[in-house]
């Protein structure tokens, strides 16, 4: 089961994000590495502008691609900082492990806040793999996980085609 903290890896993408975007489907496929994918969650915050969720179209596209989209609607007003998202991801990872719905959790994030959730999942006999860009991967998370996979070495950044409208923009 794959859990993607979208904001974390998008920020870790670096300064080339004007030209590149992360191919989430391809990345998920590579991270599964031939193993059966039970489910892939994407966690993100809603981007509300004048009362309108401008990120809804992008989230809908991800949902149509087969991802289970979890968009939390609580953001601090005037500050581009999402709330609830990390806890939602951590809870989902632990609850699914309690229900024995997966054997291996692939956490796509480098946020140290996930360390307690990872430890609880491991206590239930599950493996936790962490994938993140090196620049956004905390040492604590790398240390506690069963396997760390650097996204820096994985070809997951797709060159944007300017001839096509990028909805994610």
């Amino acid at each position, binding site marked *: 089961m794959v859990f993607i903290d979208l904001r974390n890896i998008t920020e870790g993408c670096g300064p080339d994000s004007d030209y590149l975007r992360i*191919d989430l489907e391809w990345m998920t496929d590579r991270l599964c590495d031939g193993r059966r994918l039970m489910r892939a969650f994407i966690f993100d915050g809603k981007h509300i502008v004048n009362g309108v969720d401008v990120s809804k179209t992008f989230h809908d596209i991800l949902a149509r691609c087969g991802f289970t989209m979890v968009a939390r609607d609580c953001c601090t007003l005037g500050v581009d900082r999402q709330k609830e998202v990390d806890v939602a991801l951590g809870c989902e990872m632990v609850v699914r492990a309690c229900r024995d719905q997966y054997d291996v959790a692939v956490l796509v994030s480098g946020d140290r806040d996930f360390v307690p959730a990872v430890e609880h999942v491991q206590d239930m006999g599950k493996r936790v793999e962490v994938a993140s860009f090196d620049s956004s991967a905390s040492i604590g998370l790398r240390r506690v996980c069963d396997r760390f996979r650097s996204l820096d*070495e994985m*070809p997951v950044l797709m060159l944007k085609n*300017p001839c096509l409208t990028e909805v994610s923009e």
Partner: protein
Amino acid sequence: MTMTAGDLTGLCPSSQDDDVAMLSFTTDSHGNICSNWRGKRVYPAWDHEGVISPGESWCCMMELNPKNGGNYFATPIRKIDSSFLADLGGEQLERIAECLLTNHRDEVLDAIGGRVIRDADPVVAVAQPVSDPHGSDPAEGAPAIVHDGCPGIYYDGSDSLRSQLFDDGYYAVLFSKDRRNLVIRPDRRGYACVGGTLTVHGISGMLRWTPGEHRCAHISEDGSIAVAE
């Protein structure tokens, strides 16, 4: 990279039916010797005599996996090398030349050691070394770009990549963040490829290749082409 027995009747000792193929072998991600034939993976038969090394080409007897039909097993008959070509008779050479100019030109050139045929006239073919793959006119179509026996991708410094591995269609281009790994995979939302040339807006600013550089590439079962530094 195959030729059917029909193309090479008489060249291989047992080429009586369609179960004989000429294969170039490489290694998969697990280090196993393998090749591809008719869209399926090929592994050497466990009881074959002789040793197959990566990069070698062999005339093989093919057998579909009787358990699940998911792959083929190849029993090598004869290695395709310079001595094999030297032993061919006149009629056999004619047959090969005919085959080269019709169905399997690029594939056979890979197998016989990395040469490029550039011919405007299909009757008169001139084999030339691949030292200057850029030298051919793009209007002639994609040349068989090979280097040290491996097919690859040629970067001329502009926003285009050329390779015999490209089919006409659309491809997405993916990088690793450290730019060391490149994957080009079929994607209808990607960049257009015509005649073996893939034009990618902005790739010159992304690639860390030097103009005129050629890199070996590996094509996987899903059609994606991977290039690693």
